[in-house]
């Protein structure tokens, strides 16, 4: 069994990597680079300055991972005489140019005669670059700051500003590696972070992971006591402070912090995109199971009678009608009943905002859940043990609840983890129609804005979640039904 799980985990990781690699290749190679700058307003400001446009574009493309960009000053640092090399058309620069051209760089000239060169990454480099930078482990040697040579390099355990023990670090990117606080899941870490790249052009400059995982809306300010003893109201999350180079530290920072860890993330009032999707998706899922399992059971009990037929009509209706049409229709009914038709109208604090999205999400997934519940119940009710139970003289109700349901629920249980994990992505349409600031809306938005890092990030998250949800589902049924042995199946589902 352990061997089987290990095999499955390895296979899952490999399949996630395969999918992400394919998407990386498709996104980088098949989308023209010109599309990247389609909506960039900075380029309009730079119009008429060809040098600055070239630098801006190539720096952006380098940030996005398309190519390697070098300018003459980068080249000349390799040369012995920097100043002479920096002259336009100098012999040293020509030498370096010839050397770099061999490596595949393409040289062009600025209007002042200085050189710059670009080299587009080869397909395998694109994939390798992504995975090479993917997992970032913080260590005390992470910070490179020439202005602060006395920086201690150590990991230690000490009480944080709340008086709770935390693993802290000096010389790492983050001050707090592991810490506790009052927000779910109470223990947090900054030790291992995933690097998905930088979002552009929407949420420009932020890490894509930060965009979807940090809070939204207004800043959440509160009273805090800084390390130096100074008090103040701030939205800073003092646990999420990063190293700030000494050159950029000002006296405001020095008043608040003893060390250079002054670059702190903010707390926000509204939940992050991921949490938003979870709240709505989770509630919708709960409602869906609450409706469809009893309904499916009832349909199976009244097989071929009018409740069954009515249920079948409902299921067929839900399958046939385009989900978009259904959502708009339901939203219109909600609107007539005085519920908001857009989520931001009352915001996330008002319960009324949640009613319609949750109901719509639930109803959308009832049809398939009802079909399967009914199907499994009907299949089970023809088995021998049911006949035996009948022969023993048990009532119809007892047979259904005690005997059939317990067997029929197994395949339904298998699907629960994937539905819970996938409610993060499942609500793409609902979130778009109701303008809910969640993850589901992010993918079409990223595609429309040509935000390639975001597309790759979301692909990774959705794929990883669904692959591992399936694994959890399979493990769950072996817990519920000891007769099921996964390993004997030879790995195929």
């Amino acid at each position, binding site marked *: 069994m352990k061997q089987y799980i290990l095999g499955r985990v390895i*296979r899952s990781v490999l*399949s996630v990597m*395969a*999918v992400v690699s394919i*998407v990386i290749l*498709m*996104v980088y190679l*098949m*989308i023209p680079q010109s599309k990247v700058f389609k909506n960039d307003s900075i380029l309009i400001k730079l119009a008429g300055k060809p040098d600055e446009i070239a630098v801006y574009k190539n720096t952006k493309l380098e940030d996005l991972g398309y190519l390697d960009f070098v300018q003459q000053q980068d080249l000349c640092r390799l040369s012995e005489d920097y100043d002479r090399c920096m002259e336009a058309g100098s012999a040293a620069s020509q030498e370096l140019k010839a050397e770099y051209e061999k490596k595949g760089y393409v040289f062009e000239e600025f209007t002042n005669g200085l050189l710059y060169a670009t080299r587009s990454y080869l397909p395998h480099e694109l994939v390798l670059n992504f995975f090479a930078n993917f997992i970032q482990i913080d260590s005390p040697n992470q910070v490179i700051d020439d202005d602060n040579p006395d920086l201690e390099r150590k990991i230690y355990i000490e009480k944080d500003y709340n008086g709770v023990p935390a693993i802290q670090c000096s010389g790492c990117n983050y001050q707090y590696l592991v810490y506790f606080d009052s927000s779910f899941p109470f223990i947090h870490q900054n030790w291992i972070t995933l690097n998905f790249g930088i979002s552009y052009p929407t949420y420009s400059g932020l890490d894509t992971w930060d965009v979807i995982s940090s809070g939204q809306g207004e800043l959440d300010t509160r009273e805090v006591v800084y390390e130096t003893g100074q008090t103040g109201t701030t939205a800073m999350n003092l646990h999420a402070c990063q190293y700030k180079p000494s050159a950029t530290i000002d006296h405001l920072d020095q008043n608040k912090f003893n060390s250079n860890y002054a670059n702190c993330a903010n707390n926000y009032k509204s939940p992050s995109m991921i949490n938003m999707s979870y709240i709505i998706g989770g509630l919708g899922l709960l409602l869906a199971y609450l409706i469809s399992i009893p309904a499916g059971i009832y349909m199976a009990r009244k097989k071929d009678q009018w409740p069954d037929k009515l249920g079948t009509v409902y299921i*067929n*209706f839900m*399958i*046939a*009608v*385009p*989900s*978009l*049409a259904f959502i*708009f*229709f339901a939203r*219109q009914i909600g609107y007539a009943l005085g519920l908001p038709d857009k989520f931001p109208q009352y915001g996330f604090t008002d319960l009324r905002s949640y009613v319609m999205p949750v109901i719509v999400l639930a109803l959308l997934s009832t049809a398939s859940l009802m079909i399967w519940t009914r199907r499994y119940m009907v299949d089970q009710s023809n088995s021998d043990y049911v006949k035996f139970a009948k022969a023993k003289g048990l009532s119809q109700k007892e047979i259904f609840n005690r005997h059939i349901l317990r067997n029929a629920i197994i395949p339904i249980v298998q699907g629960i983890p994937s539905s819970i994990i*996938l409610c993060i*992505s*499942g609500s*793409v*349409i609902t979130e*778009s129609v109701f303008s809910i600031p969640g993850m589901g809306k992010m*993918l*079409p938005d990223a*595609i*429309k804005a040509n935000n390639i890092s975001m*597309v790759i990030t*979301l*692909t990774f998250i*959705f*794929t990883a979640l*669904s*692959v591992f949800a*399936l694994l959890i589902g399979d493990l769950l049924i072996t817990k519920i039904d000891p007769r099921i042995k996964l390993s004997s199946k030879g790995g*195929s*589902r």
Partner: protein
Amino acid sequence: MEEKKKMDPRFQFVTLHQEESEHIAAPQYSYWKSVFRRFFSSKPAILMLIISGLIVVLSILQPMISGYDPLNVPTINDFSTHFLRPSAAHWFGTDNIGRELFDAVWLGTRNSLLISFAAAMITTVLGVIVGAFWGYSRKMDTVMLEVYNIVANIPFVLIVMVLVYVLGSGIPQLIFALSCTSWLGTAYFIRVQVMIIRDREYNLASRCLGTPTSKIILHNVLPYLISVIVTMISRDVPSFISYEVFLSYLGVGVGQTDQTLGKMIQEYSQYMQSAGYLFWIPVAISALISVSLYIVGQTMADASDPKTHMQ
């Protein structure tokens, strides 16, 4: 012996008819006749067939007659033609720049139907062919199962959206994106069915007699799968229409110049409160198409299952 027969007067000889003796004494049975008899015994299905037939014919003929082009807008500056409510002169009214909604709807329907039928056809043909061989060949099974496990784990919406994003928007691209991985699901389904039928005795016998695999698949296995295949088509077409509508609504479906129902719903959703007919008519038509095609398909699937013919 001869003498004995002559002796018994209760028996008499009949003349031997060579031709009649060849006929098997069973009631006449024609598969397709039974399918249609079964299908036309359902009244809702006939009604839905008429509706869907009407929609298909209208969507093919109407754009030919009207010659409607969403980019050709002579009325753009003539404000008296904008936002006209549905009336006898303008059956479905006019939109924000004076285009006839009636013409636009049928062009959109045509494209939506084209996308969903094409995608469903590719999915089915490819899925059935690959699935049939997949179920038969054990070597192919090990490879294809891995591929299927990878693809089936990714949300379908994600695949379609990323593909449309990469390929650019347009009708052929959308058809490709929709059918690119969905055929794997069909193939997997067919594989399971084939594996069930594969090892039945009559197939073993057929193999012993030296029938080639392709012939066993075509003549012994596939006829069993007709009702399954029809069920899948009847599920695929409405779901592809649904996907087209939803992708175009999100703005990642067809391009700016193509007219589809989803595109119209997206374009007109801003007028939902002020000129609701612009939005609700395309929505209603897309719902009508899906429902009618789904019911026709389901009834057809029931009818094409030979087990129901004897009832």
